Structures are given as structure tokens and as C-alpha cells.
């Protein structure tokens, strides 16, 4: 192993404004594409994590969390990097609410712990399908690469293009929007879940391979009993006014679940 005689710290004391810090990170990252210029409004640090934690409302979270404008905490980037711990967050939730009201929120924390335990058990298998696809297709039926119209937010499906833009600019997406994109990429576009998972990890501030990849596998059906898909009506139901869910701008998502099932999974027969 090569030895360094006396490593020098690179910390720039006095970096107080954000732009200087961003420039510093750029200097440290010569391999980054020149076109990668976007920085999130979500800032790292303990005070920012504490601020999120102070805004926690476990009971409201439980009743609105599936809605894109619900009372989600956006604590996940801080939990991902250990700035705050899941046990501290759990304790805060129990300080604020009784066990019943905080239950849904803590269950979501438990999802993370569940994924982490699987990661510990199978650290190198995180990029392999846990089970076969249950879509009537084989892995060879799915393409390896994400098409450019997806990575650039130009699918022509307004709500999804909006979610992609949000991902690229903020590095954060509501979990429901993540599922919509995963379902679309796997089942409408027949792209391997690994390509979508890698794309999310490039951009999500809370991206960690365990939660991310296993959630993609849940949507793809390689770690669940059935594929996750949705229709436009579902997006409209869970979206606020900021999401375009008109039929004319989202046509490929429109239809009943029976129609979509027949269209997306023609080898499986009628929807059970």
C-alpha cells in the first residue's frame, strides 16, 4: 500500500458563502461534466437537519404522506448521510405524538432499516434482481440504457417531465413521484430497473443503494409479488395544483387499471 508521509487537509477555513463552497467542490471534481451546474436548495449541515426535525408533524404526516404536497419531512438526505440518526428522529416523533399517531411515520423509518439490513446481508448483490420479473417478460426484453428523453425530462408526458425536472434541479422527489417514474421507466418503456436506479443515485441527495435499488426492484416486480403501475387518475388524486395531470398532456398514462394492465403486460392475460 502506498504511504503518504503527511497528508494536508484541504479544508478551506473561511468558506462562508455557498458559491465559494460550490466552486471549491467543482475544483475538487475535475471529472464532472462541464454541463453539470445545478445545485440544490437543500443545504447540508446540522442546523438544516435540526430545522427539518423541528418541523416534524407525525400525525399530519400519517394522514397526508401519500400526497405530493403532503406533510413529508424531507429529512431523508440528512438521515442518509448520518447527519441525524433514525433513532433520534423516531424519539422526536414519539415526543411529539402518541405511538398510534406516530406509527405511520416510524414505519417509514423502519423501511429504511429493513433495506439497510438486507444490504448488510447481501452487500454485493444490491445490483442483481432478487427474484425474476413478474411481468410476463424476461430480463432480455428490457433495455440496458435510459433513453435521453427520460434523462432530459422530454418524455412528452407532462407530469413525469415535471417530476424529472424536480429531480434534476432539487435532488429530491416525493416517494410517490419516485414510484411513478420507476413504474413508467420499467413498464411503459421496458428499461432495466438497474438503469433507473443508477440514474436516481446520481441525483437524489438521499440516494443510498439499499433503499433506492430495492425500491426500484419493488416497482419492477423483482422484489415483490407484482409489478407497480399506476394511471393518470391516481397521479391526479395524489397531486397538488402544481402538477399537470390533463389527459391531453399525459395520454400514455390515461386509462383504467384493467386497460393499462392489458396494454403493459400482454403476456399475463386479464388483470386478476
Amino acid at each position, binding site marked *: 500500500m502506498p504511504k*503518504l508521509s503527511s497528508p*494536508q487537509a484541504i*479544508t478551506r477555513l473561511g468558506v462562508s458563502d455557498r458559491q465559494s463552497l460550490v466552486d471549491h467542490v467543482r475544483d475538487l471534481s475535475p471529472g464532472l461534466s462541464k454541463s453539470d451546474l445545478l445545485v*440544490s436548495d437543500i443545504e447540508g449541515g446540522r442546523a438544516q437537519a435540526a430545522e427539518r426535525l423541528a418541523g416534524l408533524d407525525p400525525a399530519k404526516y400519517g394522514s397526508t404522506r401519500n400526497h405530493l404536497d403532503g406533510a413529508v419531512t424531507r429529512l431523508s438526505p440528512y438521515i442518509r448521510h448520518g447527519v441525524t440518526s433514525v433513532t433520534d428522529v423516531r*424519539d422526536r416523533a414519539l415526543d411529539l405524538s402518541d405511538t398510534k399517531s406516530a406509527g405511520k411515520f*416510524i414505519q417509514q*423509518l*423502519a423501511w429504511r*432499516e429493513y433495506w439497510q439490513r438486507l444490504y448488510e446481508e447481501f452487500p454485493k448483490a444490491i445490483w442483481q434482481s432478487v427474484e425474476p420479473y413478474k411481468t410476463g417478460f424476461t430480463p432480455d426484453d428490457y433495455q440496458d440504457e435510459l433513453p435521453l428523453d427520460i434523462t432530459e425530462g422530454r418524455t412528452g408526458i407532462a407530469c413525469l417531465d415535471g417530476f424529472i425536472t424536480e429531480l434534476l434541479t432539487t435532488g429530491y422527489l416525493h416517494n410517490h413521484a419516485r414510484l411513478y417514474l420507476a413504474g413508467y421507466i420499467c413498464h411503459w418503456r421496458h428499461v432495466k430497473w438497474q438503469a433507473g436506479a443508477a440514474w436516481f443515485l446520481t441525483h437524489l441527495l438521499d440516494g443510498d443503494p439499499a433503499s433506492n435499488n430495492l425500491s426500484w426492484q419493488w416497482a419492477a416486480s423483482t422484489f415483490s409479488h407484482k409489478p407497480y403501475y399506476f394511471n393518470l387518475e391516481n397521479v391526479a388524486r395524489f397531486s397538488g395544483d402544481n402538477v399537470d395531470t390533463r389527459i391531453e398532456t399525459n395520454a400514455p398514462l390515461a386509462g383504467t387499471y384493467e386497460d393499462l394492465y392489458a396494454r403493459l403486460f400482454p403476456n399475463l392475460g386479464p388483470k386478476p
Partner: protein
Amino acid sequence: MSVIWVHEDAITLDHPVFQSGGPNARPVFIWDTKEHDRQAYSLKRRVFIYECAHDLDIPIYAGNPVEILSALSDGQPIYAAGSPDPYIQQALSDLQQDHTVIVVEAPRLAQIPADTDTGRFFRFWNRAKKSALTHSSETLTEVTQRS
């Protein structure tokens, strides 16, 4: 002087690894651009991680963690928070060849029996929920009473 590797899964000064390392252990963060490139992290991810590390006001080094920690530890133990990340595990494993490495785990959200079926979340949750829904202070009290 022993060092504490503040890696990207635990960018904090509030972790049991600091109790294990004691007051003289020096926390350091290591910025590994090659790993970020390998992970294809976007600028916004890198900025967020750097902000979290910078906020701790600890030395940040750039380069390979194994080389830097080897040089900094000067024969003293190297401490780190536990992590399932293969990159971190590999670095700690490489360091163990020539150094004393002490890995310290944070408390879990849930305590579950070792034979729990983790094939699906809700099987896990059924065994985990009692402890997951218990405040840490109550758990600590129980432990104290048992000991």
C-alpha cells in the same frame, strides 16, 4: 494519535464511535473524488455531502481513505462508524491488515430475533414494530434495570 474516520454514512460528531474513541481521538473526513466519479454523483450530491462535512469543522483530506488514514493514524487505532457500504467495508478491511480498526455500530431502530424472515417488509415489521415504536429512553431504562 488515534483517528475517527467520519465517512459518508455517518457525517456527524454525535455517534457512539466518539465515546469509543475518547476525547483524544481526532475526527477526519476524507473527500474521495475517484469514488464520487465511480458513483457518478452529480454536482448537487457532492455539494450536499461537502456541506455536511464542512459544517462539522473538522479536517477534510482529499484522496484515498486507506492511504490517508494509514498516514494519519501513526500506529494508533482507527475508529469508524459501522456501514454496509462495500466501499467503506473494503477500506476498513484493507486498513485492518496493518492497523487496529475499531468499528462501532449505532443503536438500531428495532431489535428483532436473529431468525426473523426478512423476505418481505411486513414480516420484518411484525417482529420489529414493538421495539421500533419504543422511545430510546425507555429502552435505556430497561437495559439499566436488567444489568
